[in-house]
């Protein structure tokens, strides 16, 4: 109860009885809102739970372990991109180039192994370098030239797509021609009745790592502070540009891992894959309750957001609906999620 009172806006200066009485008379709806405001990951969690139950009732194949395992694998790539996207959106930025960076990285890794005969571990390191370089370019343009991240990444999106096509000549590298290490992320292992892919495990490890860094370290707190109010952060002595640069670099590193997962998941490296991954990653972050204005949200919300999108797509297709309805549903989801988010935030006024 005390938590709800604290979240209910400016506490009365004198906690006189009438004031407390007033807070106690809050409607059930506003009480729900206060709880949702206190725990931002709660609303996507509820949506996910309801979606799973509803789709489970609609089609009994949905809740089978093979299907649930398939959903996690389908989510592993977007879920990983969503980590990078969350980091950047937390700083009040947006990255339209995440999908393009990932595809470019996957093409470089695959081609230098297959065509240039580089050992697979070295190729993965080269992939990491490509991811970091792409992040560094975005970060450099955002911090040095003070360009809006939207514009910067809109530009680099096109640059990276073009580079990918120029470099690869438009041809796909098949997984069967790659060393096993490159497609390792697609391999699965049994956990009881479920089959889990290495890619899903890698994604979850990334989530745990990034959540830890964001929640428990000074760097994480500075990321929130920079996204919340850049000038306030600067005046508080936070090196804003260095934080921004490190965020774009970290996102690049995460995307490089995403490229590895993508190669495993699709068992190929294709320059034409993942055109819609940019928007899907933003969708996951937004549905997960992270504010596009920066400074608020959590990486766990984005995982839930990615799972919600995955569950909707899978559930609707099992229900026999056309793929267009999946897209329609995702569109509705985004608008509903942001509306609910706005409603929850009214708590403070």
């Amino acid at each position, binding site marked *: 109860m005390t938590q709800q009172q604290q979240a209910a806006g400016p506490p009365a200066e004198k906690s006189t009885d009438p004031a407390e009485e007033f807070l106690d008379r809050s409607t059930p709806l506003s009480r729900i809102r206060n709880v949702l405001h206190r725990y931002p990951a709660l609303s996507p969690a509820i949506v996910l739970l309801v979606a799973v139950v509803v789709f489970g009732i609609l089609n009994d194949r949905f809740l089978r372990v093979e299907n649930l395992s398939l959903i996690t694998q389908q989510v592993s790539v977007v879920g990983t991109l969503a980590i990078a996207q969350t980091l950047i959106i937390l700083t009040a930025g947006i990255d339209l180039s995440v999908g393009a960076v990932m595809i470019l990285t996957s093409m470089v890794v695959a081609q230098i192994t297959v065509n240039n005969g580089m050992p697979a571990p070295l190729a993965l390191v080269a992939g990491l370098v490509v991811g970091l370089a792409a992040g560094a370019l975005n970060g450099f343009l955002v911090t040095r030239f003070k360009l809006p991240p939207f514009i910067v990444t809109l530009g680099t999106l096109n640059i990276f797509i073009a580079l990918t096509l120029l470099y690869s000549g438009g041809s796909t590298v098949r997984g069967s021609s790659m060393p096993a290490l490159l497609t390792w992320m697609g391999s699965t292992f049994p956990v009881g009745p479920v089959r889990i892919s290495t890619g899903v495990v890698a994604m979850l490890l990334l989530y745990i790592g990034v959540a830890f860094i964001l929640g*428990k*370290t000074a*760097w994480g*707190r500075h990321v929130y502070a920079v996204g919340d109010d850049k000038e306030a952060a600067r005046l508080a002595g936070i090196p804003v540009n260095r934080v921004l640069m490190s965020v774009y670099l970290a996102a690049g590193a995460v995307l490089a891992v995403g490229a590895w997962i993508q190669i495993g998941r699709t068992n190929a490296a294709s320059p034409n894959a993942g055109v819609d991954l940019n928007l899907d990653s933003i969708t996951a972050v937004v549905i997960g309750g992270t504010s596009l204005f920066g400074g608020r949200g959590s990486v766990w919300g984005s995982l839930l957001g990615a799972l919600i999108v995955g569950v909707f797509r899978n559930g609707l297709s099992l229900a026999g609906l056309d793929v267009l309805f999946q897209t329609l549903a995702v569109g509705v989801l985004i608008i509903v999620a942001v509306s609910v988010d706005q409603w929850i935030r009214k708590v403070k006024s």
Partner: protein
Amino acid sequence: MTAVDVPTPATGTRQPILQARNLVKTFGKVVGLDGVSLDLYPGEVLAIIGDNGAGKSTLIKCLTGAELPDTGELLVSGQQVHFKRPQDARAHGIETVYQNLAVSPALDVASNLFLGREERLPGPLGSIFRVLDTKGMRRKAKAELIRLGISTLQDVTVPVENLSGGQRQAVAVARAAAFGSKVVVLDEPTAALGVRESNQVLQLVRDLRDRGLPVILISHNMPHVFDVADRIHIQRLGKCAATITPQSHSMTDAVAIMTGAATA
């Protein structure tokens, strides 16, 4: 080291904690500061007043490292210093509360108090994994608020956006007071506050002074200035028009000097 100017009678011959000598700052053709000097002595509240565009904010920014003066020098306890960034001033014990508050709304009170100088856990958890000592910082934040007599902030885990204007200002002032070992600079601390909240902030200013911490106070509000200031530095057209005391001059005199209708 330059020769110290003749100190004002009110403050005797003590060594100033902070001195500015002939600061000049131009923005293109606009002259923000035109050779301003200022002395701040231990245990005093020095108010800086002036009309819009008189150079108050520029002066403060130069004193606190937010702007780099073109020429002129700064001395802290008689030692010449060069502030290139706000962190440099902070490293010399000068803490500033900026007009726009410089608090992060989504972070809680304790996080804001320690923003930019977070403390890590002792041992390998802190040194290798760089884990923050959240509990310790909350405990210290609470202790600091009690020490400063800020009773309106009971819970240091509340996000700052849930606080009233006065409470937010208290958080900002508390941060400055907690870490400012030599000087606390307050830029328009009562600008957006109601009567009651203004009084709380002014009381906080007096408490800081009584603990020996000198305060520089920038304000438009004459009653507030005359209420707490020991000396008043009047800026006009980029220069220091006069330095007066509430005893030697009235509010009307101060306004007249500020607007150029009179000289000290």
